[in-house]
């Protein structure tokens, strides 16, 4: 049923993201989601969280630290997470703000803009288990309104979904061609054509939708204070 639902809503999968461009990177602060300051203005480093994740039969302790470099870039580092091994996989560094003052893109839903500040909520994962996150990291980047140069919102079709539909369409065309033209398949072409057509038609429709999802350009909106 889920597949039927997904296919019937083939063209409606879009993803919308937002990123903030900041004038003064030193004014950006990082908090945990409960409001605890992790990286206040001027602070070069802070602890975001500590915990343990399971790696096969042992528990591995980890500590995630936020670091602000000389250019003002903010990144999260976790050495123990980078060393994670099967059955989990980890990430050692996640950048939240680059030296040019551009934040990591977040879902539009997670970006709140008001008259005093722009808040970007991130749901990050530094150790990925099987379908779950073994070291999740909910953090909040806050930019004072006076330091916001622009908020760039972007909406585009889910390209991965488009490629999947395109592959499905290509496979359908290949299967239909085989059914209709392969010498090994019994019956005349006239007898085989309806079966081939039945495979080809939905494949072409879904492949077309996939092509649309892949080729449709992203739409962008720029908000300036």
């Amino acid at each position, binding site marked *: *049923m889920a597949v*039927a*639902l997904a296919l*019937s*809503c083939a063209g*409606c*999968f*879009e993803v*919308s993201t937002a990123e903030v461009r900041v004038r003064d990177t030193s004014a950006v602060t990082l908090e945990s989601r409960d409001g605890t300051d992790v990286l206040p203005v001027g602070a070069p480093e802070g602890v975001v969280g500590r915990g343990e994740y399971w790696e096969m039969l042992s528990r591995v302790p980890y500590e995630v630290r936020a670091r602000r470099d000389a250019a003002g870039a903010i990144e999260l580092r976790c050495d123990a997470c980078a060393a994670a091994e099967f059955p989990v996989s980890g990430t050692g560094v996640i950048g939240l703000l680059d030296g040019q003052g551009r934040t990591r893109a977040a*879902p*539009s*839903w*997670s970006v*709140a*803009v*008001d*008259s005093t500040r722009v808040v970007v909520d991130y749901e990050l994962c530094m150790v990925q288990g099987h379908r779950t996150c073994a070291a999740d990291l909910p953090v909040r980047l806050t930019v004072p309104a006076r330091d916001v140069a622009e908020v760039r*919102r972007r*909406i585009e079709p889910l390209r991965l979904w488009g490629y999947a539909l395109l592959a499905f369409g290509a496979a359908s065309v290949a299967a239909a061609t085989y059914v209709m033209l392969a010498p090994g398949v019994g019956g005349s072409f006239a007898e085989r054509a309806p079966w081939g057509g039945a495979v080809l038609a939905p494949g072409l429709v879904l492949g077309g939708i996939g092509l649309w999802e892949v080729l449709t350009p992203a*739409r*962008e*909106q*720029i*908000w300036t204070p």
Partner: protein
Amino acid sequence: MPSLSHDRRGRRGALSRGRGHLPRWLLAGVVIASRLTAVTLSRADEPRPVVDVSVLRSPGLPVLEQRSGDAGWRTACVVPCTLRLSVADEYRIGGDGVVDSSPFRLPATDEHLRVEARGGSPLLRDVGTLLAVGGMAFAAGGGAILLLPDDANASSDARSSKVVVGIGFIAMGLLATTVGVLARLFSDTSVRVSVAP
């Protein structure tokens, strides 16, 4: 021809000079001008409050849209924004990738107003519609299975299986419909207009 030209002259005379009336074009002009002046004056008289428009959480590219009279919707600003708006116009929160809110008007006041909105997701709305419609079709299918007459030679096991399948279809259909309706409800764009403190 002479009578026609005479006729024309006569009619003109009756309208313009003969009985001391204003020319028709002038009368029409005066009427239109007075109407326009009245509209302009009433527009000038109506309050134009300063409004803070914010959409705290929203998917897509949210904007405030404005409609004057019978004209179409046009973008008033990219939210959040602060601007002076006419209370005579209609507004809504919309934009690419955002479910349009219901149209709303501003209260006739000069006070500083605040419009707070929460943007709804078209994807959630579309999935909700699909689930609701698909669920109803599923439930109807279950009902049809139950209503189908039993085969005279069917065993009791086959009959009970038919009932189980029918009830299963109805239950799954109703569940999907409920989820779909809830998804549609939660995908609405809500707007709250209040006086700023």
